[in-house]
């Protein structure tokens, strides 16, 4: 009995080895492509935000929705024929790239700004949005310009463009870093810091819904593209997304999502072209 079990175990072990040896070889051989792998699984796995309206959030019905999130559903529809064949994984700004690196998701659609450092770590597709970093302060704050923040405490969310930009360009500023966008906003309203630096779209949206705050005019750094990202080297999926974005651009699909989610969050004179990038045609 013992011997039989041992033999069975050995066989199982060998079988296990076989599988492991096979998998990484697959993409190199090219026979089974990444897209085929997604099709075989019959599910697209996408990392999205859950606390960053209007881009990725949870609606009253508990469903993951938003500008980015709905693009993910459309991708699933065009790739697998059903917009529900998508599995959303909640990510935080700092966990977006590790999730791709460790194969937890196929694609990140979580409002990620293209930066040189990030380009080293992942492959970006063509952009779907453009953004600049600005700072939010309480209405009655003494802070008038960005320079005023040099001697104060600035809140950032770990791993956001604001975090990266400030660490690089103002290493002497005092930063207070939180894991989630909602925690950072909570910290600002609790008076933990004097300003919250974040992508301006998120700040505009929040300031519109929560009176008593204003966004400083000055921008931190240049306007930059926001794009979906795939694991470094996954050229196949990247190219598929690029082609898909171009196709959706012809249908003005992003404008539809903009009207549905984003327009009401921004001031009335905001032009859609200053926020969305239709067809992936702008490179920053």
């Amino acid at each position, binding site marked *: 009995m013992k011997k039989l079990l041992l033999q069975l175990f050995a066989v199982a072990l060998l079988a296990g080895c076989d599988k492991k040896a096979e998998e990484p070889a697959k993409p190199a051989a090219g026979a089974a492509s990444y897209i085929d792998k997604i099709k075989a699984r019959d599910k697209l796995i996408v990392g999205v935000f859950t606390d960053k309206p209007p881009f990725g959030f949870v609606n009253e019905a508990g469903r993951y929705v938003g500008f980015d999130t709905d693009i993910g559903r459309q991708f699933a529809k065009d790739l697998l024929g059903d917009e529900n064949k998508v599995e959303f994984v909640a990510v935080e*700004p*700092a966990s977006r*790239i*590790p999730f791709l*690196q*460790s194969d937890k998701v196929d694609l990140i659609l979580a409002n990620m700004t293209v930066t040189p*450092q*990030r380009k*080293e*770590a992942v492959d970006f597709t063509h952009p779907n949005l453009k953004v600049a970093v600005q700072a939010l302060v309480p209405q009655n704050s003494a802070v008038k310009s960005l320079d005023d923040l040099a001697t104060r405490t600035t809140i950032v969310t*770990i*791993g956001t463009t604001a*975090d*990266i930009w400030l*660490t690089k360009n103002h290493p002497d500023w005092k930063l*207070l*870093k*939180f*894991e989630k966008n909602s*925690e950072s906003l*909570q*910290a600002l309203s*609790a*008076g*933990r810091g004097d300003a919250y630096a974040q992508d301006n779209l998120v700040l505009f949206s929040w300031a519109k819904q929560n009176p008593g705050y204003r966004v400083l005019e000055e921008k931190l750094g240049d306007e930059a593209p926001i794009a979906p990202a795939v694991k470094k080297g996954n050229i196949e999926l990247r190219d598929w997304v690029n082609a898909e974005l171009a196709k959706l651009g012809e249908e003005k699909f992003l404008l539809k999502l903009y009207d549905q989610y984003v327009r009401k969050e921004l001031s009335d004179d905001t032009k859609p072209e200053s926020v969305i990038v239709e067809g992936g045609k702008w490179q920053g």
Partner: protein
Amino acid sequence: MTFDFAFILSTLPTFLSAVGVTLQVCLIAIATSLVVALINAALLVFRTPYLSRLVALYVELARNTPLLIQLFFVYFALPALGFNISGFWAAIITLTFLGGAYLTEVLRAGVEAVPLAQIESGKSIGLSDWQLLRHVILPQAGILSLPALFANFIFLLKETTVVSAVAVPEILYTTKSYIALYYKTYEMLAVLTLICVLLFLPLSLLLSRLERRLQHGQFGS
């Protein structure tokens, strides 16, 4: 994926100060927890009216709510009531709240483990309550509690990483910041693991040696 040693070297000064913060937080928290626990255990042992009830309630409350939630409450909710406590002190307060409860139970159990005969003997030679506590109960209860006490110290030490959530620049916060800025996930997690091993293992060994030393006297073997 290549392993970037040059990058690791460049982060070491920051990690060194992070280790300092971790040690500061946990050592202060252990000390304050012990003070809280001593007072509470005395109240429980003497069955002080009302107060002992209150202590029992506190122990249940503290032990049955997650540390992270306690921390968020102190850091994010208390400012609404006018208490604006810095991340560092919010960490100390929360760890003391939790640690104090666990240590209270440890000390109480230690006192209860002192043989009844010892206490009765003490009473029979006319010792007062305080004399009984100082000369009979505490010396024995202290030794009996040591293993559980030290285990809880190590527990508190490991729990300190939770306070990274309120932006206290300790080791986990530093690790996460670096990963977020430079995407050196593997390198930074390796450094964090190594620091934990170097920090916690020697302390754990030290405490268990100390424990053996002290208990040696107790059993005289």
